[in-house]
């Protein structure tokens, strides 16, 4: 691909983006160094423009493989940044991010610095990483797009073809992967980068749809080195696969419709990752440095719809106010609760003790469309997985039966990741779980008839069908219990 020159307008545009990053915090890599670079276009591996890039890629791979594994710009070291089984680990090894919302940002940084190293070793000053443009469909061209690109499997000789490795499965023989694997629509139709369980870019923890498909599925399909994060980046096709995943990030943003990077999340925005320049020196980056590939990192993709969506880390982060919550003074004596037997445990909201203005606020919230009463359990924890589900009922006497209205069943507690102390590794913050339950429908009948007390009943049950009372394998501790008003009206 021919490299583009940097126009004055584009220079200023880049400077503006870079300035945005500076405002958000100290820039972790040298902006001047970036601005001195020309613009690069990552070619579609199946188009003629990619041919010189693939030839130069071979040259660079051979040069990088000739370096000792202790050299940060060697092929082995670069692959080990993603993952390795070699011990002891060196700086930045095994730092790949999967199953969380850093997946896209970390891999963009990783590819960017790898690309610079390859360029410096390739003998091609305009070198850019090709992308594996696999697509779904049944035409010959579509099916061919899901075969391993020919230069990566022919000649099938690792000694003479740096793009070939025998460490793959059936795709080395030319078999295409299934059409559905290349279907990224399930990811692209998501509108939230993070937040809901099903999203585009992942939670913390939790993988997004793009990571699941096509990313994970292509790794499994290629198999061999590619099938394991500890070895995947040793395969030269790894980098082209990830360039395509990176391209999909741009495609997703370009659709609009509220799609945006989670720049309001300080953890996503500020977490630093370490890589190496082409001269072997360390460099650190955050997501704020890589939000816009064209303006901040000087590359676009062949046939990409331009301009790319421009985003930057704002000077002052004002997260969207989704829910405003304030406590409501409804006394719950002795709120601490320990459930360690196969029987319900009850606490009582003393509604008779509630002042008139608080009662009025509670009733007003129940009647309102934008406000809701919520029962909060704080510091919920068990030493090991309790192995039961704790049903939470409000406004009942004793154990509910089939005739008990379901509105009193306000929710369940099932500890999974949070709250189980034995699941926390040394990297985990020692946070217990917090649960919130909707109260409006459960408490309304009691408040309207002026009941003196309203029971909160927690019932341990077998999670399997039948749901009999069951003793927890480990006692569940609920330390805090309170009622609050949630206001979901948007500002």
């Amino acid at each position, binding site marked *: 691909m021919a490299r583009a020159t940097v126009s004055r307008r584009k220079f200023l545009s880049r400077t503006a983006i870079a300035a945005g990053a500076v405002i958000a915090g100290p820039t972790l890599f040298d902006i001047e160094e970036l601005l001195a670079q020309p613009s690069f276009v990552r070619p579609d591996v199946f188009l003629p423009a990619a041919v010189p890039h693939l030839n130069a890629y071979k040259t660079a791979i051979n040069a990088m493989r000739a370096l000792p594994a202790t050299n940060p710009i060697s092929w082995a070291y670069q692959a080990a940044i993603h993952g390795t089984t070699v011990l002891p680990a060196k700086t930045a090894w095994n730092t790949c991010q999967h199953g969380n919302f850093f997946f896209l940002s970390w891999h963009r940084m990783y590819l960017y610095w790898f690309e610079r190293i390859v360029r410096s070793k390739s003998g091609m000053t305009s070198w850019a990483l090709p992308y594996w443009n696999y697509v779904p469909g049944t035409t010959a061209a579509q099916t061919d797009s899901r075969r391993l690109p020919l230069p990566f499997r022919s000649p099938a000789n690792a000694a003479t073809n740096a793009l070939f490795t025998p460490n793959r499965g059936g795709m080395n023989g030319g078999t295409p992967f299934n059409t559905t694997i290349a279907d990224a629509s399930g990811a692209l139709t998501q509108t939230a980068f993070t937040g*809901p*369980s099903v999203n585009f870019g992942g939670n913390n923890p939790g993988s997004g749809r793009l990571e699941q498909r096509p990313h994970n599925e292509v790794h499994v399909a290629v198999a061999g080195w590619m099938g394991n994060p500890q070895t995947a980046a040793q395969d030269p096709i790894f980098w082209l696969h990830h360039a395509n995943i990176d391209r999909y990030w741009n495609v997703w943003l370009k659709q609009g419709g509220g799609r945006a990077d989670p720049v309001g999340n300080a953890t996503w925005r500020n977490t630093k990752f370490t890589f190496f320049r082409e001269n072997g020196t360390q460099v650190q980056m955050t997501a704020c440095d890589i939000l816009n590939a064209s303006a901040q990192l000087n590359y676009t993709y062949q046939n990409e719809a331009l301009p790319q969506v421009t985003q930057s880390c704002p000077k002052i982060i004002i997260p969207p106010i989704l829910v405003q919550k304030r406590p409501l003074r409804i006394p719950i004596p002795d709120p601490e609760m320990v459930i360690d037997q196969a029987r319900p445990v009850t606490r009582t909201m003393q509604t008779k003790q509630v002042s008139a203005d608080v009662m009025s606020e509670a009733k007003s919230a129940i009647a309102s469309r934008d406000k809701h009463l919520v029962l909060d359990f704080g510091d919920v924890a068990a030493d090991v997985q309790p192995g039961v589900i704790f049903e939470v009922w409000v406004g009942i006497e004793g154990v509910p039966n089939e005739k008990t209205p379901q509105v009193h069943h306000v929710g369940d507690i099932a500890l999974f990741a949070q709250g189980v102390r034995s699941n926390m590794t040394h990297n985990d913050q020692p946070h217990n779980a917090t649960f919130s339950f909707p109260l409006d429908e459960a408490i309304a009948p009691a408040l309207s008839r002026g009941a003196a007390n309203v029971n909160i009943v927690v019932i341990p049950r077998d999670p399997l069908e039948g749901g009999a009372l069951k003793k927890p394998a480990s006692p569940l501790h609920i330390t805090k219990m309170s009622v609050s008003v949630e206001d979901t009206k948007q500002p």
Partner: protein
Amino acid sequence: MLSFANGGGVHKELVTRNGKDFAVAAKPVTVTLAVSRAKTRLAKAKTIVLELEGVHAKAQPGFLVSVRIGDAEVGRVALYTFAEPQTFAFDATEAVKRCGGTVKVRFVPLSPLEGEGVRVASPIRISGVALSIERP
């Protein structure tokens, strides 16, 4: 109702969970979730999420798993990071609403390559299947 740590106000209300550990290999596996006591809540829900917990394998499994409810594929499991337990979440809203008092989740092994049968290098283990209602 579980509050997400990073959900920006997303609330998750667990409906049911089957905590029985099982493995998926060459043959399909069906897991049953009892939802009869939550039919009303599910019918009103805007988003129903199916979660697979503790998904892992001893080695790269070499196959994919189609996760189906009724006739619909609600998602797929492709274990790339296989050694550490992973959680997979799928939007199962429409599929669950078509079910009655019982939701049968079927796990069907698939080959990733066209025209090839399933080759199981390592079974995929799943430690729990849960159904939740999610609201923003």
